[in-house]
């Protein structure tokens, strides 16, 4: 079983469009959308949801005002300032640590489990898919990312499929750490801009920190050829496998508007030849 996770550091470099393109190119695979915060792959792949499951994680404190003696101990102990003067808990600020629940002398604080979102097992025209939706303003995105990856792994074993393609989140924090741990490789999709380079360097450092082999490709490469060369140089000097460039091409936007992968929309665009080349190198590198 091999898992490739597509990440970028910076948002909007083309991760999901590229993931859709790879879905068109790879024959047997399970697709996994691990960007649970703002999942978009389903907008292209239009999944038939076969199974929908609630995602419960963590707890929230709720003060029972009938029992509360307003002693104020909970407010003193709360590190998140989540309890106001009227002894009402702000569920957005509450971290779910349970310290107030434990110490309340009146046992006046309930601590129910929290519904943080849901996850889905689906079929798409390009293969089975596991995806999720984190509730707005919710925490525990890392746990949900880990869950969808585990479920994708289970599904792949069940179906005898030996490749998982995972669409990762932007950034380098909790959900990204959950998305790359234990993967066979990450592909960093970057762009030749000051931000793209800066963010690629940080996410490459993260991959190295967690000992996940990293590959790099440059999208919209012709926007700044000097920065593109800078990225190639960085990749080579830092032991990242450089997979090449994809030109700036309106086919990305047009195919997205049509809810198609770039290959379904126009199999002969310039970007497509370049994407195929990147994919073939990734396949070779991972021994898929």
């Amino acid at each position, binding site marked *: 079983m091999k898992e490739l996770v597509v990440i*970028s*550091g*910076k*948002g*909007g*470099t083309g991760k*999901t469009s590229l993931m859709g393109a790879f879905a068109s190119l790879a024959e047997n695979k399970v697709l996994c959308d691990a960007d649970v*915060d*703002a999942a*978009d792959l389903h907008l292209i792949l239009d999944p038939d949801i076969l199974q929908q499951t609630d995602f419960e994680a*963590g*707890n929230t404190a709720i003060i029972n005002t009938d029992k509360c003696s307003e002693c104020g101990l909970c407010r003193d*102990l709360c*590190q998140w300032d989540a309890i106001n003067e009227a002894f009402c808990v702000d569920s*957005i600020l509450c*971290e*779910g*640590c*349970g*310290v107030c629940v*434990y*110490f309340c002398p009146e046992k006046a604080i309930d601590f129910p489990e929290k519904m943080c979102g849901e996850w889905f097992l689906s079929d798409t025209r390009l293969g089975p898919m596991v995806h999720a939706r*984190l509730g*707005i*303003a*919710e*925490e525990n*995105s*890392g746990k949900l990312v880990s869950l969808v990856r585990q479920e994708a792994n289970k599904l792949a074993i069940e179906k005898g499929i030996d490749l998982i393609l995972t669409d990762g*989140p*932007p*950034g*380098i*924090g*909790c*959900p990204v*750490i959950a998305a790359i741990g234990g993967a066979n490789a990450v592909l960093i999709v970057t*762009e*030749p*801009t*000051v*931000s793209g380079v*800066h*963010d690629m360097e*940080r*996410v490459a*450092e*993260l991959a190295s*920190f*967690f000992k996940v082999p990293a590959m790099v490709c440059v999208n*919209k490469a012709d*926007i*700044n050829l000097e*920065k593109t060369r800078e990225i190639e140089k960085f990749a080579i000097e830092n032991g990242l496998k450089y997979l090449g460039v994809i030109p*700036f091409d*309106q086919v990305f*936007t047009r195919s*997205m*508007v049509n*809810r198609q992968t770039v290959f379904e929309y126009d199999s002969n665009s310039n970007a497509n030849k370049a994407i195929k080349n990147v994919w073939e190198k990734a396949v070779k590198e991972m021994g898929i």
Partner: protein
Amino acid sequence: MDGNGIFKMIISIASGKGGTGKTTIATSLAVSVDTDVQLLDCDVEEPNAHLFINPVFVKTEVVSTPVPVVDDSKCSLCDKCDEICQFKAIARIADTIITFPELCHSCGGCWEVCPEAAIEKSDRRLGDVQIGHRNGLAFVHGRLRVGEAMAPPLIEAVRSYTNPDMLTIIDAPPGTSCPVIAAMHGADFILLVTEPTPFGLHDLKLAVGAVNILGIPCGLVINRSDIGDNEVKTFAADNNIPILMEIPFDRQVAEKYSQGIIMAEVIPGWKEKFKKLYEDIQKIVY
């Protein structure tokens, strides 16, 4: 309020989807308005605004969070710390209490509950806050330590530098979960930046959901407004979200961005448009 009776507001710039132009808008707005302004880059995972502002940094503050260290000689193995911890950051394994500092949320439960006072605090570094300026523009950003998972406390540390005597512009991270909330709560106005594509719209809807939970007025900037489709405008109209600015796709703008050049400083006419944007926001907030 300043001398002219104008209240110095906090504008947080968010998007849902990444790469829609938050930093472009935040930096252009910051250099265009005729008032004292500070820019707080709260995208601590991938801060980019400094690449455009090129500030002179005058101070770096290390931000840490307290995590437990157990003194085995005092520990009576009562297991109370293991029981209270919701994050599996402290646990009894055989005859020792083991801590996993990277899982700790610093709630303080274990050291509050320990009857032997056997738990002391040590620091886990979350990252750094850097403070600087350029041409009178005050600048602060946070840089999450690579490998650190917890961004919100570092975002709060950046926001603690908010100067109430200045207009504060916050560059928020993408997404809709806890780091974004940390960058938006308490703002007077949320400026949402999107692109008119299915991904842009889908993530915009999530961002609007988050803004509504916080109950803060918002408005929209549509970047690359001539690509994609019309759905974002329909959504904005249906939900009474004012469209405050549209920026058509321009390869020249993309190339300038790639070099770290602030759009409003090089593309003629845009400084005035950003001034107007600030005026429009003031009209909405007051």
